[in-house]
């Protein structure tokens, strides 16, 4: 087979993308495409795994057996989703352990929402409703992402996540219809999680350095601002339905555009949290690092045993 020059390979690659033909692990791909994917998929995986912690915080305090089982199953799903995603990143040559070490050393990022504390039971509702709601906005288009293993992982994730948002909204609805203190608890959770949820979609389009290229590669299908608007449009009526108030005095329906106008996001806060200065950044990473360190002897023992057993079999 004759050697193809890079320009031809690039052209064929982009043609495939333009024709919605999926790229698979062993296909030729530009280095930057690979790098962008590894960055995005591993960030996504880290978000799932770090995202277990704020909710995990309430598992032992869930108010009844049903809620406890549901919450546990949901947090477990997040571990599973982290795993599907690490597995997708491994198809690009990104070794899981190295990827995780990047998280622990602060090189790799994860969704900044998980650096906010969960201080009441209502936060389990707010996270399911808002955070999973925002995540679904992001994830549904990713099911059509140009990279096969990522798209397939996202199909699985989206299928499984359909219950996550519902259970969150169910908690919020129960609280909103409950006693005055329960309703206050729900409103307080909405107040704290609303703005960080809007930040989950990332910086405004004008500030987003990766968006344009990612859209051309069909890694991304919508811009940050488009997704954010979709989220606001979908969520505001839900809040109204259960009698909670979205904490934004500039929020109003715009007849002309057919969308909600909403207030300015506090981007200073966003960048501070991204930089590591959110309320829980240090706790979250310390917890993950500790889990890994405490498990080192276990992983090592399992390796040693597997090796011994192989030797015994061979002899």
């Amino acid at each position, binding site marked *: 087979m004759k050697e193809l020059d890079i320009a031809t390979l690039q052209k064929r690659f982009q043609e495939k993308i333009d024709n919605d033909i999926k790229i698979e692990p062993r296909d030729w791909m530009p280095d930057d495409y690979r790098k962008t994917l590894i960055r995005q998929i591993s960030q996504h995986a880290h978000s799932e795994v770090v995202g*277990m912690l704020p909710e995990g915080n309430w*598992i*032992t*305090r869930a108010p009844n057996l049903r809620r406890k089982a549901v919450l546990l199953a949901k*947090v477990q799903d997040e571990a599973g989703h982290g*795993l599907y995603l690490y597995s997708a990143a491994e198809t690009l040559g990104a070794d899981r352990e190295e990827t995780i070490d990047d998280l622990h050393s602060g090189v790799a990022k994860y969704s900044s929402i998980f650096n906010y504390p969960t201080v009441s039971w209502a936060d389990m509702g707010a996270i399911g409703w808002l955070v999973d709601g925002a995540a679904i906005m992001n994830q549904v288009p990713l099911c059509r992402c140009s990279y096969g293993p990522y798209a397939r992982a996202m199909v699985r994730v989206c299928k499984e996540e359909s219950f996550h948002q519902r259970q969150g909204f169910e908690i919020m609805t129960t609280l909103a219809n409950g006693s005055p203190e329960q309703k206050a608890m729900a409103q307080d959770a909405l107040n704290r999680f609303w703005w960080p949820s809007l930040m989950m979609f990332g910086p405004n389009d004008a500030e987003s350095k990766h968006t344009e290229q990612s859209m051309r590669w069909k890694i991304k299908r919508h811009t940050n601002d488009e997704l954010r608007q979709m989220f606001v449009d979908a969520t505001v009526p839900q809040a109204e339905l259960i009698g909670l108030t979205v904490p934004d005095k500039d929020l109003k329906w715009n007849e002309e555009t057919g969308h909600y106008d909403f207030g300015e996001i506090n981007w200073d806060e966003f960048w501070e949290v991204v930089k590591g200065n959110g309320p829980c950044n240090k706790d979250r990473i310390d917890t993950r690092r500790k889990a*890994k360190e405490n498990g080192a002897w276990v992983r090592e023992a399992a390796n040693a045993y597997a090796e011994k057993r192989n030797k015994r079999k061979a002899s």
Partner: protein
Amino acid sequence: MNALFEYLVRLGDDSLIIGHRLSEWCGHGPILEEDIAMTNLSLDFIGQATSFLKYAGEVEGKGRTEDDLAYLRFDRDYRNLLLVEQPNGDFGMTIVRQFLFDAYRKLLFERLIHSKDETIAAIAAKSLKETKYHLKHSSEWVIRLGDGTEESHQRVQDSLDTLWRYTSELFYADEVDEKLVKDGVIPSMEGLESAWKASVNEVLAEATLKVPDNNWKHEGGRKGMHSEHLGYILAELQYMQRAYPGLEW
């Protein structure tokens, strides 16, 4: 005293408390795959607790639900084994606790599926399927850690020595058991202890672990006398129900 109610609460509380302990691991496991595995165990136990306590409430006939029983009793009214309330410790401690308990539970359910009480038989049948998998999982880990590295061997041997003192309680029997056996509700548990010892010894031998010679007995859970640890479990478990009495969640 209603012997059947008492017996069901014992079964339910074992599942409730060990399920609670396992749920503490969620997000902190030694590797993501094992985190998921432990959560699966925990979910199985919460399911079992729900079934047993629901039935206990029905048998009692005072209108208490499974949640009332799980969340609104005082410590002296919990009837779980001391073994299952012991702290997680390191992963090896959790695995050893699980293994000792699973080996007992499997043998117990193998008998309870023959209960003349159809509800007990049905819950036992479902739980037995889960327990067989739990035991396979915990046995394999005991062997891996016991026969792994020097460090892992030492750690699980220490855990085994620590937890062994709580194993005689697995075979605790009193007038509750006597009555139910006599009434033919549950089958005789004769031979349970020797069968347990045989199955545990086999795995421990493969794991190159030494069966502890400490035969000191710690008992009390079945009568509501617990270790200091249960109080803290209940403080978390009951927090919401105690802080906001009588609300729907």
